[in-house]
């Protein structure tokens, strides 16, 4: 039998054997038998030694081609067989079973709201400052132009600790600490916890949170206050909200303003949340009263400034649609898990 005939015979045998392959292991045996180092095809290639150059070349080419073909065939069959085997071994899953979820934790809605407020002001170039919750009459009242036995104190019922010490009733005490500690310019916000002796109900709490802001420099104007608060409110509540600045009275600012935004729930048409008038009161603000500058030793002729403040609970309640302030401190897990 010539080499070529032998090659042809091998091809036939191989094809037959391949067809008979039942699993991947048999396919592998077949590979060894025909194509392995001691395989039949390899044997033929080795036996070409006695042939002429021309014959050697021809037989060599044929043998190599056959080897390639066989390798391809066997690979294809092996993949198919492994796939069948794998499919047989695998148990089919009921994909409608629920996914197994990792329970992520959550942050408190007041943390989230404070963080959003902080982030907006930081992006506008404000620093974040903090101050003590336990403070003195001077920082909480006197320096802020709220004298003892004055009706302007009515808005600030206060928990006392001992002597001059009290629990701050607003974060404005931080303004005073800040100004005492440095010369202008100042541009800072002051988030924090405050206390007032209010009996707890759906809209009152003896403990709540505020964020205040203070900017002091030469040439700070009321129009700057309007500009910054407008940017803040649009970033916080949506670009479409409108703002309304109403004259008001705060002992530590003059002129003073209350800032309303158009109700983002009813778009200003009037609803239960805005009590039908289309506006939501969000901020108190004003130009720092010269008396406050005098209390901290700033030159009220040289510097002007503005300050503003807002209640975190109120903003969170409006934004999340929370109707009872007590929910923030009851820590019902069904409440907590709703915020991300």
């Amino acid at each position: 039998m010539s080499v070529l005939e032998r090659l042809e015979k091998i091809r036939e045998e191989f094809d037959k054997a391949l067809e008979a392959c039942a699993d991947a292991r048999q396919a592998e045996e077949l590979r060894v038998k025909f194509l392995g180092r001691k395989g039949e095809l390899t044997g033929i290639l080795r036996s070409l030694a006695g042939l002429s150059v021309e014959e050697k070349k021809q037989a060599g080419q044929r043998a190599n081609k056959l080897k390639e073909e066989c390798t391809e065939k066997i690979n294809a069959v092996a993949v198919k067989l492994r796939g069948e085997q794998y499919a047989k071994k695998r148990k089919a899953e009921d994909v409608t079973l629920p996914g197994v979820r990792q329970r992520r934790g959550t942050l408190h809605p007041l943390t989230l709201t404070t963080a959003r407020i902080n982030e907006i002001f930081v992006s506008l170039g404000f620093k974040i400052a903090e101050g003590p919750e336990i403070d003195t009459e001077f920082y909480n009242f006197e320096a802020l132009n709220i004298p003892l036995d004055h009706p302007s104190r009515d808005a600030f019922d206060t928990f006392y600790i001992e002597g001059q010490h009290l629990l701050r009733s607003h974060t404005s005490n931080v303004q005073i600490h800040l100004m005492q500690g440095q010369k202008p310019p100042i541009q800072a916000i002051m988030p924090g916890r405050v206390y007032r002796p209010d009996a707890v109900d759906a809209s009152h709490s003896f403990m709540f949170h505020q964020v205040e802001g203070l900017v002091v420099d030469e040439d700070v104007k009321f129009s700057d206050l309007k500009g910054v608060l407008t940017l803040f409110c649009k970033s916080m509540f949506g670009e479409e909200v409108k703002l309304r600045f109403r004259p008001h009275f705060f002992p530590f600012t003059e002129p003073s303003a209350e800032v309303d935004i158009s109700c983002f729930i009813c778009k200003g048409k009037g609803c239960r949340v805005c009590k039908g008038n289309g506006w939501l009161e969000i901020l108190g603000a004003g130009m720092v009263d010269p008396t406050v500058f005098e209390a901290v030793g700033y030159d009220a002729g040289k510097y002007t400034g503005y300050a503003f403040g807002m209640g975190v609970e109120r903003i969170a309640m409006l934004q999340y649609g929370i109707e009872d302030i007590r929910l923030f401190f009851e820590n019902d897990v069904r409440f907590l898990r709703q915020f991300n």
Partner: protein
Amino acid sequence: MKLSFEWLQEYVDLDVSAEELARGLTMSGSEVESITAQGADKIMSFEITSNRPDCLSVTGLAREASAVFDKPLRLPAAKINAKRTHKDHPEVECVIENAALCPRYTARVITAVKVEGSGEYFKDRLTAMGLRPVNNVVDITNYCLMEAGQPLHAFDMDKIRGNRIIVRPAKKGEKITTIDGVERKLEPGMLVIADSERPIAIAGVMGGLDTEVGEGTGNVLLESAYFDPISVRQTARRLGLSSESSYRFERGVDKGMIAKASDRAAEFIAKEAGGKIGKLYDAGGLKAKGARVKFDLQRAEKVLGISLDKKGVKNIFERLGMNVAKAEGGKMTVAVPTFREDLTREIDLIEEVARIHGYDKIPLTLGKMIPQVTRKERSRLVEERLRQVLPALGLNEIMTYSLISESAEERFSAISSRTVQLSNPLSEEQKVLTPQLVDGMLKAISYNINRKNRDLAFFEIGKIYARRGEKGAFLETPALCMALTGALLKNWREGERNADLFDLKGMVEDLFGDLKLGSVFEKKKVDGFTDCATVKIAQEKEASGFLGEAGNELLEAYDIAQPVFIAQLALGRVIEKAGLKDHYHSIPKFPMSTRDISVLCDKDLAAADVHEVITATGEEIVRRVELADVYEGEQIPAGKKSLTYSIEYGIDTRTLTDEEIEAVHSKIKEALVNKFDVAFR
């Protein structure tokens, strides 16, 4: 403050509806909270700020409306001709003992009055303003109070003993029954109106029942005075008694209105109750003088960020009842009327200009950028980091009250320091500034378990409060509390597994690791807790806190019937030492080898001690030691346990040979045997 729209229109010519008026006044600082229809009238409810007592009357709001809408005023006035007053009235002696607290007191006798119900006009007006009609004389004093803002009081002249009015501080032990029928103990310092024998009114707050004007009254003494705001406020507060009068005196009434209001009321009383008006006794001599305030147009422009013209500003001042007394260029001297005592400084006038000009007409600008680094402080960065890590570990953030009850505080005396207490707590429940976060945590857990939510994983970052020494400084320091209870894992595939101490400890280790801090745990007893360990930052002397299982007594106190695992950490040192920067360490180029070792030891031997010996003996080629298994049971002798560790060996410069590893591994075994007398399985 309520206002009848109809009444207002008697004093100012308006061509706007009540709603338009409300909008205009709200936008100029007198906020209208509601408008309700009452018959043909509209009742507007105002929030008047404490700096504007002049707006606590119909006249005052008419002046505001006139200024805002630029409409003419028609204010009522009465002038009683002194010559025409009756001369045969009883003489009254008026004495002010404390002129500082009462700089002016006027009294006027009106004889032969017929006290009966008021006419419909007065009744309607008072009802509209939220007052209850009493009788014609009392109603007229109230009408005039509402009209002009000056509180008046009418005494039954015949009940005043000795025809003497003495304005003096109360004496110790004096009492008075006020017209509301309540007997009130007066304290020295409270200003009273007295006759020759006893107090007959609490000055500026409320009259006495004895001298009240009623049906039998024939002669009346009408009081119109000025009382010191602070004194009235203190007295009203101490007595817990606030009235329409005290509310106005506290804020300061118009010094120019005292005699005018008396005239107006007397005229009405003569007309409505048929009385004969006597002369005005006028003691104290307080003069009403409006302030003169300097105003610089340029300064106003600078503060507000708008340009103003002199004519427009002058017009605003005049609409508000002020006069520009002197003007040189933009610098003016402005004469302020007596009813605007809140206007004493240039900035006050700037505000007046702004609010009448309209805040809405002031543009939006952004000031120049203030050059400063806004990087957050370390404490904030660490807390923010914790708030990223803890929810990722599956914990929900809670927020609890910083004020707790004394009894709750006492439960944690073992982990508390000297506490800070309120001197005027609202209730016993909120009396102490909390020195720990565990009480709040257990309350939150109890609250949820009571609502059948039993699987909880919570944390709180809050302040804890203490006092350094009896009279020392107050301390507020940040702290972290974490707690696990109920199932940590619950799903159809793995079933349910309850949280335990090691889940919590793992979380503490995780967050320390996240802050690049080593953590050291030492077994220690903490009152109220079982299986406790202190938590220390590696290389620190003092522990930062503890973790443990809440003891039975604590669980009972909070009505909890399932195990709760709690950790509390002071964050002070954590914040100082935390590493906030991530730094890259090169990944090992050479493979590591792992050897297991099963240590059979006494049950009581602390695993941490075994671990310590392995790391210490292993020197630098031991890269990681991990406890893979803990076994106690049938396959080993009683009183023993088996700890299986996986030890990873390797160095950075090359692959270790088996011989090198074996040498150290044997050394470790030897060290364990020498130290703890252990065997290997």
